[in-house]
């Protein structure tokens, strides 16, 4: 393992530590500073100001979300191609720019198709 290669992963580890540490620090500080006078009403779960539905927390959710998840997967795959492109974007010049624009334009047709078909409507 050469030093500069190991060094590039030091940032990854540092970011991971900061990310995890931030969560614990935020919750920890709030726990230290907070006043605690609990009573039944206060301890009840709430959701956007309304009483939550009593019952199983693992309620099945609407099938309507599924199309958004499917479309998300496809545009996620698109994003993967953008990563290596962004890395050498400067050296690729105008051709590289055109390549990616064509790629995105084709997928944009897909999005327009989904839109025109009303797949994005919330019915």
């Amino acid at each position, binding site marked *: 393992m050469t030093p500069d290669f190991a060094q590039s992963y030091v940032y990854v580890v540092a970011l991971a530590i900061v990310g995890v540490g931030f969560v614990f620090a935020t919750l920890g500080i709030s726990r230290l500073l907070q006043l605690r006078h609990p009573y039944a009403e206060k301890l009840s779960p709430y959701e956007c100001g309304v009483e939550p539905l009593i019952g199983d927390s*693992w309620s*099945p959710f609407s*099938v309507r979300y599924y199309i958004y998840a499917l479309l998300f997967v496809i545009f996620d795959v*698109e994003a*993967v191609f953008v990563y*290596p492109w962004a890395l050498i974007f400067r050296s690729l010049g105008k051709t590289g720019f055109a*390549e990616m624009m064509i790629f995105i334009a084709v997928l944009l047709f897909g999005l327009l198709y989904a839109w025109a078909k009303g797949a994005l409507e919330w019915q």
Partner: protein
Amino acid sequence: MHFSTPIFYLVSALVIIPAVLMVAMRNLIYSAIAMIACFIGVAAVFVTLNAELLAASQLLIYVGAISILILFAIMLTRRRSGAICLFFHRQSWAALPAGAALAVVLGIVLGSARFSAGSAPKNPSTANLASLLFNQYAFPFELASLVLLVAIVGAVLLAMRERRS
């Protein structure tokens, strides 16, 4: 310019833990969470193999998208109350020879395979991969967008048919 072999073996060994948990868990949601942990572990294995773009794709597509799809599918199909459980059909007597046979076949394949490290590119960096993809393989890259377009159309058609029925 890569990780030492012990790190690779360590990470690979750690990935097996969530993989076993995924199969062993009786609750489907726990299985799915173990699977996500396994996906993250596989991304780490890719990093130790110097395949950074593959690791990024693994995180983005498998951890970020596929696992959500699978969780959605579980949430959509499970029955109204109580945890969904995996079905065990008491087929361990059949699973044992099947598993043993698979192990033998895999052993033969892995034993006879020659992993020729000599022909591998000297510097498999993401930038090199990118320049190959956008210069030499630009046409297949554009074709990939058509494949994705077909996937979108297929997803929309299926979703609309479900909605109508």
